């Protein structure tokens, strides 16, 4: 990341945004021509190496993918389901091989056979459906999934409409920003994006950093394959999310809220944009909202296909039109974030929870869940469960309850659960009973709650095959900035691939050194986190995996 580029990009403000412009150009052409890139470089004074370099980072911008017409999901939930090969074959009837690209998780993990065509997502489609879709006949591509709260309804309250938004918003203004901050503090809410960092702490830091311009960013890049709870909130609870952003913005003194939404969620983009337009029409955003003296506006930035953009500093670089590489810390975004301004990045679910906290007070929220993990958590279950879907559970709920009671057990034999995204741990079936859905329980047992998606690993699948897929994902999505991850994920993939494809046996010391290097040396939790599931697999499925290693 470059301070100069941040500054140059920021000169034009968020409304005239480089990355946004790049996205629009790429949408028309599939990529961005050198001529256009040069024009943008000139306009923003940021150099062609930067516009070109940024473009080449993204799946949906880079020239390699220019000709792609249809994108098949290669997320872990879909891959594990074993249904994607058939889907690809069926699509092969309509498209050349090089017209079929990949998207990694469309949030249809509960149905699989997911693909993306002409800006829309489809899943669980039959041969006939595919024909209809491709031929442009009318087809309802929407999906349905189970969704309910096991105990407290915090995020799954019914029908949060604009009227409720307005009511809570006026309450927020009445409280004043200090009181709002106090409520957030007393709620004890921790971030739902994976790291579990106390929300109030970040807001306070940004609030205490004086600047005319500040930003609140909603991290809607839900990149973990198997996770679709943010998708649920964006599509079904837009006002809840937007209120959360506004309350957070009000506390820290931000006048801009930015939603960074992944391109793989086209419906979410449309629904949120509609909600923003409505708020604008009703003057619930803009200047001097409800005579509070508070100015606030919202803007969607559509992501372009890169997992690392979910990492908050990469996300900030992305919005700036820089290459979305991870930044070093300090400085922290709360002091020096987007365009060098104080910035808070929060996950969709974290922000959505503010609605409840504003409505019922921080204390009420703190009472839910456990002492150190307050509130509720959304859990996404994939199609191996009898009842796949999104469930809201109080923090501290036994994992077994989620698996058995809510999920209704498995359709097929499953040997492990990959919980919390690719960087989360692999939980063997026998450990399910030891875990509760909260940060501490997972940590203490050597796993990670993360964003709480659950992807099943079927018994039939070789663990080493799963690890190869996982490492392929890790290397493909590495931003490439730090040595251990750029080189280490590639080499780890090669070692596993070689062991899987040939009778090559991996040197255990070497592999151990490699995992140690990734874990200790990586700049961010992408390279730093990937050894966890690998170690879990080696530890809990040692008998199976040992065959690939030198004895």
């Amino acid at each position, binding site marked *: 990341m470059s301070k100069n580029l941040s500054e140059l990009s920021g000169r034009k403000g968020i409304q005239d945004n480089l990355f946004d412009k790049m996205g629009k150009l790429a949408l028309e052409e599939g990529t961005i021509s050198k001529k256009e890139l040069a024009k943008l470089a000139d306009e923003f004074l940021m150099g062609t190496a930067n516009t070109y370099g940024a473009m080449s980072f993204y799946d949906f911008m880079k020239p390699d993918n220019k000709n792609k017409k249809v994108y098949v999901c290669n997320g872990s939930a879909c891959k594990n389901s074993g249904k994607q090969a058939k889907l690809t074959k069926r699509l092969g009837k309509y498209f050349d091989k090089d017209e079929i690209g990949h998207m990694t998780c469309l949030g249809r993990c509960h149905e699989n056979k997911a693909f993306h065509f002409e800006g829309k997502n489809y899943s669980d489609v039959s041969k006939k459906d595919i024909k209809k879709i491709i031929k442009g006949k009318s087809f309802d591509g929407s999906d349905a999934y189970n969704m309910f709260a096991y105990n407290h309804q915090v995020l799954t309250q019914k029908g949060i409409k604009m009227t409720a938004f307005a009511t809570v918003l006026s309450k927020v203004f009445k409280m004043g920003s200090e009181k709002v901050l106090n409520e957030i503090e007393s709620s004890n809410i921790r971030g739902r994006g994976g790291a579990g960092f106390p929300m109030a702490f970040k807001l306070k830091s940004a609030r205490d950093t004086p600047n005319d311009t500040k930003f609140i960013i909603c991290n809607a890049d839900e990149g973990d394959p198997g996770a679709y709870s943010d998708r649920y909130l964006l599509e079904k609870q837009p006002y809840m999310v937007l209120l959360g952003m506004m309350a957070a913005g009000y506390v820290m003194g931000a006048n801009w809220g930015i939603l960074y939404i992944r391109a793989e969620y086209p419906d979410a983009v449309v629904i949120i944009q509609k909600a923003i337009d409505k708020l604008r029409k009703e003057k619930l955003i803009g200047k001097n909202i409800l005579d509070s003296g508070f100015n606030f506006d919202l803007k969607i930035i559509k992501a372009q296909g890169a997992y690392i953009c979910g990492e908050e500093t990469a996300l900030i670089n992305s919005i700036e039109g820089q290459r979305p590489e991870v930044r070093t810390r300090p400085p922290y975004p709360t002091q020096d974030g987007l365009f*060098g301004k104080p910035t808070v990045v929060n996950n969709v679910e974290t922000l959505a929870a503010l609605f409840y906290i504003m409505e019922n007070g921080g204390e009420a929220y703190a009472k839910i869940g456990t002492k150190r993990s307050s509130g509720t958590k959304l859990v996404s279950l994939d199609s191996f469960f009898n009842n796949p879907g999104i469930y809201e559970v109080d923090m501290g709920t036994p994992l077994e309850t989620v698996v058995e009671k809510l999920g209704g057990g498995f359709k097929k034999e499953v040997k492990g659960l990959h919980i919390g995204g690719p960087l989360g741990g692999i939980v063997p079936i026998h450990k399910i009973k030891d875990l509760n859905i909260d940060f501490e329980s997972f940590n203490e047992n050597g796993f990670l709650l993360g964003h709480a998606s659950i992807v099943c690993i079927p018994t039939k699948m070789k663990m080493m095959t799963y690890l190869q897929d996982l490492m392929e994902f890790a290397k493909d999505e590495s931003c490439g900035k730090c040595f251990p991850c750029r080189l280490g994920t590639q080499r780890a993939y090669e070692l596993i691939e070689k062991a899987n494809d040939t009778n090559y046996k991996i040197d255990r010391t070497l592999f151990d050194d490699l995992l140690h290097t990734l874990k200790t040396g990586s700049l961010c939790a992408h390279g730093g986190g990937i050894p966890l599931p690998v170690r879990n697999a080696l530890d809990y499925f040692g008998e199976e995996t040992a065959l690939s290693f030198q004895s």
Partner: protein
Amino acid sequence: MLSFIKRHKGQTYVPTLCDAPNLKPSGSCRMCTIDVALEEGGRTKAMASCHSMVSEGMHLHTHTEDIQRLRKNIIELVLTDHPLDCLTCEVNGNCELQTVAATVGITSVRYPEGANHLDKQKDLSHAYMTSDMSKCINCYRCVRACDEVQGQLVLGIAGRGFDSHIIKGMEQTFADSECVSCGACAQACPTSAISDIFQSKSIANTEKVRTICTYCGVGCNLEVSKVGDAIKSIQAPMDAKVNQGHTCLKGRYAFQFYNHKERLDSPMIRKNGKLEKVSWDEVYDYIANKINGYKKEFGADAIAGISSSRCTNEENYLMQKFIRAVVGTNNIDGCARICHSPTALGMQRTFGTGAATNSVGDIKDTNCILVIGANPTNAHPVTGAKIKQFAMGGGPMIVLDPRRTELAKYAKHHLALRPGTNVAVMNMMFYYIIKEELVDNEFIKNRTEGFEDFKKQILDINMDVMERVSGVKREDVRAAAITYASAKNAMSFHGLGVTEHSQGTFAVMQIADLALITGNIGRKGVGVNPLRGQNNVQGAADMGVQPHQGAGYMDVTNPLVHNQYETFYKAKLSDEIGLKIPEMFDAAIAGKLKCLWIIGEDVAQTDPNTKKVVKAMKNVDLLIVQELFMTETAKLADVILPGASFLEKSGTFTNGERRVQRVNQVVEPYPGTKVDGQILVDIMNRMGYTQPDYTAEGVLAEVAQIVPFFAGITWENLDINGKQWPVSKDGNDTQILHAETFKRGLGYFEFHPFEETKEILDYEEKYPYILTTNRELEHYNCGAMTRRTRNVEILTEDVVMINPKDAKKKGIKEGDMVCMESPRGKVDIKAHITDEVKKGILSTTFHFPEIMVNNITSDVHDSEAMCPEYKVVSVRIRKSKGVFRN
């Protein structure tokens, strides 16, 4: 943390690869990781020390087993994607990867062969820069150097993850990219992945000499590597106060002229119309006899000298001493006449001292920069890069320039005025500063005089007229004035776009008054900072190379001073002001000047109105030219003296911030040539004046006795980073002038109304376009040196810039030859169509003799200092016959 460890344990105690002393931490290589505990024996956490902060009470474990394991394994990974051909690599023995690999004790790689980038092709497209990306380790130091040091943003990264790779522009070659060949990336690169044709990182180049760049007034320190008497390459020392490891392509790469086969290699005398090689003895006798003869027949004033800002202080001192003490006239002048004479004069009038008030390093401490009539990214590249960094990083900058210069693109305010109207726009600025009540009353009361009158006259100016003549909207001027006047600390930089005008001196006084009215004088981050053109133009003036003031700026007509000089020089001196350069030419044409001695100055190519200059040269009886090459002027000479380049001599140069720095001889003078100072000493002795042989120490010691502000300077105490004058007897130097008082007592306000230049008044109708002149980065002035380096491969010719609208009107296309005609003459030149210039304005360089642009420039001069008005020439243009083809 890392700098803390380095401070206490040494530079290489913790091995690193992506860290570099002049770059921000990147956190890429992770080699700097250490174990950190918050208390003794406490639990440790691995942290990358380059981007983590130390705090009180921390325990830093830099070499635990775990950490050493990590470092070794990282290097092993790096080597899985790196060729193992160290022995044939150009940086073998001087490669950071090699060193670090040895430190961590890596001997072999355990991984089976995998994907790699070993087949990446070399890029040898460029005149200087080279790359071999198979050697790249993705540390991104080059990218950061191009961004954070040069601000050029040529280098970047494409792809992601393992595919990430360094790119130039959009996957271009160096030659096709926007690279300005500063070499910062090559110096930053820890391997040979980016280097230069001189293999500057090779250990073969063991012997290193530190010296000062000969090109511009920035005064960069250079580290010259040589083997025997052959110069191999040049790098920039990191500990240089002036340039902190940076240079431009002139300093770093344009040195090959030094042993170019076209170097003059013998004294010559014109015999029967032809220049013939003669011995030194013969030439000295010839000159001595001739000069003695003229003295006797026509008086000493029939002789004149033009000294060179390219030469050392010591040589300039000797030249003026020769003219004054041995010849006996004050007819001595220098090239400052045609560039910054108005600066010296104007600032002397307002402050009492005609030199930069502050230092370039103050850019770190300022809150606003005003750039007037200067294009430092081309003409003063290292300072330009620093100003650009300031603006890129969001610092408010105001650029007053007719052209949309590189800096103007990054500026908060660009006031694109019509050439020749600086005074008008500056008066508008004063108007708004007063109207908006942004004047510093306290400062004005205590430190200045003349303000009340000044204010009255400013408030009386006719804004409608000013707006019309300058072509700048008043709101824009107002906004810029507010930015400058409300900044806590504001500093200004100005160049020849201020001085080379009929109202040059007045404009300089206005810039000085702008600092006074806002109290921006006498502390860090403020002041008036002329960007002195040539490497030693400041020094030449300091040494007395001007007709009215002797060494140390003392008035030659003042009887006390006169006496002091006579005693010191032990000679009879003239107490009449001598001739300025333009007056010398007039005197020559009038037949009054018999002998002219020119050192290192190509007046026939660089001075305005070439025809007149050539006529003058031809009219003097004896034209002595002391030079490196057969320049246009040298071709007209009666006597040629082959001098030596900066690489072949010792002495001192004084840069634009008054910093006197040591120039150290790197190689012996080119065969047949002599150090210029020695030539002067020889002739002085030949003419009966005893002067010891030239040594830097010796002459400097003499200078220190007569120039008050050199009093405390010795060759020894200048050390590596020099000293900024005035230097008191105890050796203390001065970073900031006028901290408490001005040399003249109070700062002086004086109002000057805008006056249209005679050039426009006389010729506007018949010659409706205004031609202005500028410099390109790659070449230096007349190009005598840079054209004899590979810089010509990068920039090959002079062009004229034309606004697209004008081009369309005249049916001119990119690359067409156009004819530019002024009342003095015409030239044909290639057109470059660009909106960098406004409608009605043309701009061109004069680096190449093929196109003698000065055939058409005018001889209008600054009313006060006689600096020629290069920046405003009335011309008309048309497409010339046929399309120009390369």
